[in-house]
């Protein structure tokens, strides 16, 4: 059953994607990376900077819309929005852009994320030196920071340990996610880990970061940028590249939502905000798990990939550890995930590189193309207020 939201999919489409190389030290400013990716995306769409009249990104992006527009040589901006909550934002700019285009607020929106996350500001280094101001996010952080619970890996590890206890998940089960991603990255020349697959034994031998998470359970830290151009489906059909429909786009936050620390709810095993996103996406797009050929699941840490498989209904609660066995999530399996290699294998561009991969899969131009990819799921950061997409053939 479709809702009225499906009208967005009939009116807005992704017309172009662009990205820089993914590296550990770009040697360029984040602003320049953003401009390079946006220029590539506009070129992919066959549009010019002066066609852009809207922008959408993350609150965590360091590049103001006006700086980008100034150097891009853009004109009037009629719409700009930002989404909070780290990588949970990833798919939200596409939703915002689609709404803006569908409602006639503006015509061409550029969504972007550019970061020197490895060479300039490493998220994995943890939150250090934050002054204890009496504002809610800092107050909440104070329930964990005095004890040294300061890094994203440590926040996820707390939920992961309990899930292992409840569901009998093992470290090897987490490792299978990493092995699949690295297998796919190994045949993607744009991936940092191109031609560098790993085995389950490699995973098991990798050192502890925060028990129960090993090094190979943690995504990379990367420099790079990705941009996506959204315009009306009608206009996109006249442009250079085949349009990709935004069949559904959704955000989600639920009761007792936390930022990486859902420790206090009765159930700390699921990702209810991702379940909320999944339900909206399926309803809007009018499809179900059986219609999805491949999914780009946000993989900053392996444990929450298992949870996403469950929240999207590919199996029941606690069953993902069995669902992923036997290569089921690898190319050629029942549900190949992250054919580009994910953030564990390709690069960590805060989920935006996953959106670009979703577009390539629907266009049929991906380097690891999944057959019949008419509907592709893309998700955003897990453990935080999040977002998601179902992309479809235009």
């Amino acid at each position, binding site marked *: 059953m479709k809702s009225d939201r499906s009208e967005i999919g009939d009116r807005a489409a992704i017309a172009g994607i662009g990205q820089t190389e993914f590296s550990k030290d770009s040697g360029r400013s984040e602003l320049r990376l953003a401009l390079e990716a946006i220029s590539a995306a506009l070129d992919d769409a066959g549009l010019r900077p002066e066609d852009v009249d809207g922008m959408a990104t993350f609150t965590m992006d360091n590049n103001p819309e006006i700086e980008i527009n100034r150097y891009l040589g853009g004109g009037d901006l009629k719409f700009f929005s930002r989404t909070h909550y780290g990588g949970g934002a990833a798919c939200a700019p596409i939703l915002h852009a689609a709404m803006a285009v569908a409602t006639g607020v503006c015509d061409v929106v550029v969504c972007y994320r550019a970061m020197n996350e490895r060479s300039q500001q490493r998220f994995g280094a943890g939150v250090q030196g934050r002054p204890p*101001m009496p504002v809610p996010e800092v107050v909440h952080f104070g329930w964990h920071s005095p004890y040294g619970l300061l890094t994203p890996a440590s926040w996820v590890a707390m939920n992961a340990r309990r899930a292992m206890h409840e569901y009998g998940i093992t470290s090897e089960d987490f490792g299978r996610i990493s092995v699949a991603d690295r297998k796919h990255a190994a045949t993607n020349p744009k991936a940092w880990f191109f031609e560098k697959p790993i085995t389950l034994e490699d995973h098991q031998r990798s050192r502890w*970061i925060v028990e129960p998470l090993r090094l190979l359970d943690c995504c990379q830290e990367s420099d790079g940028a990705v941009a996506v151009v959204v315009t009306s489906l009608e206009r996109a059909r006249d442009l250079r590249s085949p349009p990709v429909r935004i069949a559904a786009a959704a955000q989600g936050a639920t009761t007792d939502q936390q930022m990486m620390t859902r420790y206090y709810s009765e159930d700390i095993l699921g990702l209810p905000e991702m379940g909320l996103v999944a339900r909206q996406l399926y309803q809007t797009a009018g499809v179900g798990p059986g219609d999805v050929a491949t999914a780009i699941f946000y993989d900053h840490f392996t444990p929450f990939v298992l949870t996403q498989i469950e929240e999207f209904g590919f199996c029941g609660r606690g069953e993902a550890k069995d669902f992923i066995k036997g290569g089921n999530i690898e190319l050629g399996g029942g549900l190949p995930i992250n054919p580009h290699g994910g953030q564990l294998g390709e690069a960590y561009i805060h989920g935006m590189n996953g959106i670009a991969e979703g577009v390539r899969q629907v266009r049929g131009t991906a380097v690891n193309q999944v057959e019949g990819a008419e509907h592709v799921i893309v998700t955003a950061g897990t453990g935080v207020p999040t977002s998601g997409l179902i992309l479809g053939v235009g």
Partner: protein
Amino acid sequence: MTPEELRQRLDPIVGREGAPQHAPDPVNEPMIRHWCEAVGDLNPAYLDDDFAAASLHGGRVAPPAMLQAWGMPGLRPRGEIRSGPMGEVLALLDAAGYTSVVATNCRQEYARYLRPGDRLNVTAQVRSVSDEKKTALGVGRFVDQLMIYRDIGGEEVARMEFRILKFRPPARATAEAGTGRPRPRPARSRDNAFFWEGVDERRLLIQRCDGCGRLRHPPGPMCPDCHGFDWEAQEASGRGRVYSFVVAHHPPIPPFDYPNLIALVELEEGTRIVSNLIGVSPDDVAIDMPVEVVFTQVDPDLVLPLFRPIPGR
């Protein structure tokens, strides 16, 4: 710089003899007296002209163990202190992150006694740099140096083998040296100040809604159940069970000790709280382990409610 690259750059320096360095002062009585007083060696052969003249030395001599003092460049040396092979090796090791130093061994051989008026020069060579070793101070490399002391006639008067450890200062040592940070301070707002003030008084408090009696942690200004704004603080028993836990290894963040054991504790009252577990090895922690609060002065101005296993359970 990889270990291989470092080794490649060290190899040409090792074994090369540096240019002779002239001692800043001749061997002299005032420095001998200062050294003897500082060390507590009051041998009159070093200090008393008459005694020394009548001794087998036939005059005052310098304490042999004072050898190194004669070659030292001083606090404000003229020219570049880090010249020569040793300077090059130290600079490479600094660049590779081995920024701390400690002397570990010193062995001296004397060919003759030094006398006031002797003018010395010193030649130094680095004889070896070890591969990376784990030590109690941290990981580092041992550097063996040989220094040869000659008089103005070119005769060798003494030699010294000197070994140092250049090491990476571990995070904990840095904190103890006073350059590290204290633990991150919990932010106190009008909504949560009662909790931290309770901890200051060594009481573990839970917020209880006046309207419906619901217990809340973390606390907040309004009850999500009955929407009331009024609440009181109830003192917890301090007992609970481990609901989940992690063992942090990397990255090491000052001033925490690693591995760092952090637990999600479910209190008897039903609310959960994050804290450190103490008095237990990470290998011995299990979910559902009974624990109790221990108020711990972690910094001079910070008490935290930490938890430990309940003895005998």
